[in-house]
């Protein structure tokens, strides 16, 4: 009930948008090849569900693998950079620079270099999703209250013990924030990578739909991709809830 009353402005606005779009399509008589109506998109989405399914699965597979590796890699890197300041100073600018590379240009080259298997796609997903997580993790580590570190150090805890007992749990919120940002890009990055070359996947589906002049199928695939991203975000939210009992509760009472 509360969620309903909370989300009705969104629902209303979304509905108004869709109705406006539908009305425009019907009244102005735009060619569906150029701008299909929402009802048309919903219709083909239903008709083509069997054709889209394998592509969705392929994309999900690559995105999941790439994102998982990216999370692991970001975590490992963050630990190294946390403990070795000169590596951090050396690598961070390079990571920033890596974010300025247009993947449109890089993706076809990656396919050339690494073939059309999983590798180039996973690498592209990592390229896109790695950095926001790394930054969030490092800023999370840096935000641990000094008192926690001092306390553990005064107990004669070693660097690793301090990291495990204070730094890491304190960075949980920042990590989740980074995870959410990265997750928003994971599916889109996969689609990009597929677009440059793949056997199967939403990227291929979009490319084919475009080449066959089926704007309705392109938009249907966009809807599916957005739904996948929202699903991924929802899963993260769920994982947070399920695992985070220790990290919730009322805001810190004693300030």
């Amino acid at each position, binding site marked *: 009930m509360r969620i309903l009353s909370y989300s009705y402005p969104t629902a209303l606005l979304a509905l108004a948008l869709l109705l406006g779009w539908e009305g425009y399509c019907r009244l102005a008589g735009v060619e569906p090849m150029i701008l299909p109506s929402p009802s048309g998109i919903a219709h083909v989405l239903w008709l*083509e569900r069997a054709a889209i399914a394998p592509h969705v699965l392929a994309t999900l597979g690559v995105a999941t693998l790439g994102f998982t590796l990216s999370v692991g890699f970001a975590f490992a890197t963050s630990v190294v950079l946390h403990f070795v300041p000169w590596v951090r100073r050396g690598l961070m600018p390079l990571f920033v620079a890596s974010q300025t590379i247009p993947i449109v240009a890089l993706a076809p080259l990656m396919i050339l270099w690494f073939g059309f298997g999983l590798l180039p796609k996973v690498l592209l997903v990592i390229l896109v999703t790695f950095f926001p997580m790394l930054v969030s993790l490092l800023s999370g580590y840096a935000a641990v209250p000094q008192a926690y570190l001092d306390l553990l150090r005064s107990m004669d805890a070693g660097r690793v013990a301090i990291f495990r007992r204070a730094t890491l749990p304190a960075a949980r919120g920042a990590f989740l924030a980074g995870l959410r940002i990265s997750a928003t890009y994971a599916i889109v990055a996969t689609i990009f990578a597929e677009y440059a070359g793949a056997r199967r996947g939403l990227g291929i589906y979009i490319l084919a739909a475009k080449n066959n*002049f089926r704007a309705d199928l392109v938009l249907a695939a966009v809807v599916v991709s957005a739904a996948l991203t929202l699903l991924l975000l929802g899963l993260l939210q769920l994982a947070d809830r399920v695992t985070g009992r220790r990290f919730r509760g009322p805001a810190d009472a004693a300030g």
Partner: protein
Amino acid sequence: AQDLHDVSIALDWTLNSNHVGLIVAEERGLYDDAGLDVEILPYSDTASSALLASGAADFAYMTSLGFMTARATGADITALWVTMQHETGRLVYQSDNAEIARPADLEGKTYAGFGSAWEDALISTMIETDGGTPDYDTVTLGTGAYEALATGRVDFTLEVATWEGVNSELLGREQSSFAYADYGIPDQQNGYIGSRTDYLAENPDVVARFLSATQDGYEWAADHPEEAADILIGAGDFPNAELVRGSMQAIVEGGYLDAADQPVGGIDGDRLAAMARFLFDSGVLTGPGGETLEWPGDVSDWYDQGWMDE
């Protein structure tokens, strides 16, 4: 100076020898003489027929497939010209691939594709005609296809004989090919220039001037292949000038531009209908609701060469 009428044309691919007549007409002032300021839009990731249909360009240079798919799917566009009198596409594979001797051998092989539905119809028909089962693996790679073929990561792909074919030869790649027409595909003309029907109705004069000048451009190129190649090289960004020259030579030697029974750019209605029929019958064309399209019976309104009469 006189007031020039602005027209724009979108291309089917990065500038190449197929477009030579347009460049010659532009560079030799034929368009100026016709009172036109022609903008040749650079190739982009959006299909030229889609750009044309949406009104983003006045004319489009389209692959035969691009034109027919768009037209069959309901775009209000009409073909006015066709550049190549014979199919320039062909199916290629590495000569040292001992497993491939005929299209039937493609069964179970890996194809590097470009992401259009017709490729499957084309290849399947060729395999079937040759007595094989059309069962093969597709990897969509776009331009990456040729590298993938050369490095053996895929078994076959499609190419334009007068461009990628020449390029492979220059690179010394040993490749063999099958012609579509030998295996059940109607021989088609290729490289249509078209416009929107409403544009035609509103600017018949501009259309006629544009296409006449274009025709003059291609005729001149056919007669002066070497100079035309140099004009093209001067107009574009060609990292490999030899490819352009070789390609122009191939076009002229192959008699692609002028057929005995046709003026340069002339559309053969029967062959267009045969190819369109093939597309409908192979079921690759679907409408906006996803339904398979019915053969309209008559496609003579798909093209209009009325401008040639003036």
